[in-house]
């Protein structure tokens, strides 16, 4: 698993690549929670290069969402693979975390949200 972070306005954009398997879920949660603060309460997860995520990874996403919401922010997902998009539907996480087809749409969603 590789995570690269960059800031866009009040959002951190995290590009995930590789796989979030048995051992990586805890590290993902630590890295994502560290990226969220009062100045950047929104987190955009760019998943086009992510091949696999299991439930520890999904737990990391939900924990990040809870922290973001406490700070008035949100979590947005961009370009998941067909399998990962399906997993978000099966687990019914997709109504909780909005999925976008492109990064511009996700960034706009963080701008449109009131402070």
């Amino acid at each position: 698993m590789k995570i690269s972070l960059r800031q866009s306005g009040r959002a951190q954009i995290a590009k995930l690549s590789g796989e979030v398997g048995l051992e990586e879920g805890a590290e993902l949660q630590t890295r994502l929670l560290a990226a969220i603060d009062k100045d950047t309460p929104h987190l955009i997860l760019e998943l086009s290069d992510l091949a696999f995520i299991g439930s520890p990874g999904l737990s990391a996403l939900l924990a990040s969402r809870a922290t973001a919401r406490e700070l008035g922010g949100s979590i947005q997902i961009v370009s998941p693979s067909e399998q990962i998009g399906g997993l978000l539907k099966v687990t019914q996480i997709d109504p909780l975390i909005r999925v976008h087809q492109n990064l511009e749409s996700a960034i706009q969603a963080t701008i449109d949200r009131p402070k």
Partner: protein
Amino acid sequence: MPVPSDFGVRESDLNEITVANDLRSAKSPEDRILEELAGKNYSPEARFAIRLALEEALTNAVKHGNRNNASKRLHIRYHVDTQRTVIGVCDEGAGFAPAKIPDPTIEENLERPCGRGIMLMCAYMTKVRYNKSGNEVWLLRVNQPEHGACDGRD
């Protein structure tokens, strides 16, 4: 618990691996099974599904079954052929009652970070079967589009 009779394999067909009770050690049988799936031309969707269910079974065994106890072990038995994949994961813990796990898809539980393991195994595998005490789970994935039934406990 022997492999369920309706899973289509015999005991003598199974490979067996015993590993230490930690997620790093659990990667070893996972890697072997994933290699076999790739070698037998399972589709990317099928490999994703089997890996997802297997990781759930292994994580549950390490954390909830053996309660992260380093002195305990995991016992994995598996068989992969072009028609089906059968995997059994057994821990050395006291077991649990799968039916008592809260449904993670009802509204009040949706935001809980944990509790999706059994639901995911049932959604992605053809059959999922627990032994009576709940410390052993058997997974079957038939290598065709039809899957998604959960048998619950044996």
